[in-house]
């Protein structure tokens, strides 16, 4: 649950960014034309951001599992 709560605001922000980019792609042709370059750069950076967000999700889930295991060990050793 904590992994979800931790990553949710960031995921929402990235989803919003992705929807902005998709809308901009749908609004072609770009005026002025050089905006196409900017949208291309944005697409590349956005792809990296999405990859990093997925990596963050995986890392958070792994971390919380690890912490839960350590907590269990401490509880087993010292009691509640």
């Amino acid at each position, binding site marked *: *649950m*904590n992994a979800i*709560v*931790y*990553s949710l*605001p*960031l995921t*929402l*922000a*990235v989803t*919003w*960014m992705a929807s*902005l*980019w998709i809308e*901009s792609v749908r609004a072609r042709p*770009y*005026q002025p034309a050089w*905006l196409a370059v*900017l*949208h291309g*750069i*944005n697409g590349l*950076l*956005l792809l*990296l*951001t999405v990859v*990093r*967000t997925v*990596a*963050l999700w995986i*890392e958070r889930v792994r971390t919380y599992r*690890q*912490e839960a295991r*350590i907590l269990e060990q401490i509880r087993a050793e010292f009691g509640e």
Partner: protein
Amino acid sequence: MNRADSRRKTAREFQSEHIDWLYARLQAITRAQGRYLWLLLIGGLYTFAVHFSAGTTLKVPVLGLDVPRVLVEPFALLFLCLMALGFFGTFEATSFQHRLIAFVVGMDWRQLPVHHIDQNEHILDHLMLPRASG
């Protein structure tokens, strides 16, 4: 002791003497992490408001300029992407610094949770506090 071991020992001794440097750097990284996150979230809210507002030009805060709407969103998105990547970059930097500190103090990094030595919590850390204290 071979040359590599000797070099490693010297490096470790140097780092042990300057653990406060490593600690200060960790704090600087986590401070930057919080700032990147705030800029990302506030920037996201700004673009959200801009997206659903009317008019062909938009007033850009801080700069005080009237900018055509078609230019604002791509540049705002570029800014948001850079803030997000900066935020993720601080995660890696924090992880490296945390493991370095754990190594220097002679601990396994898994036994030294980063939130025990991080003085600069950001908003996402606060979302988890109820579980941590409960």
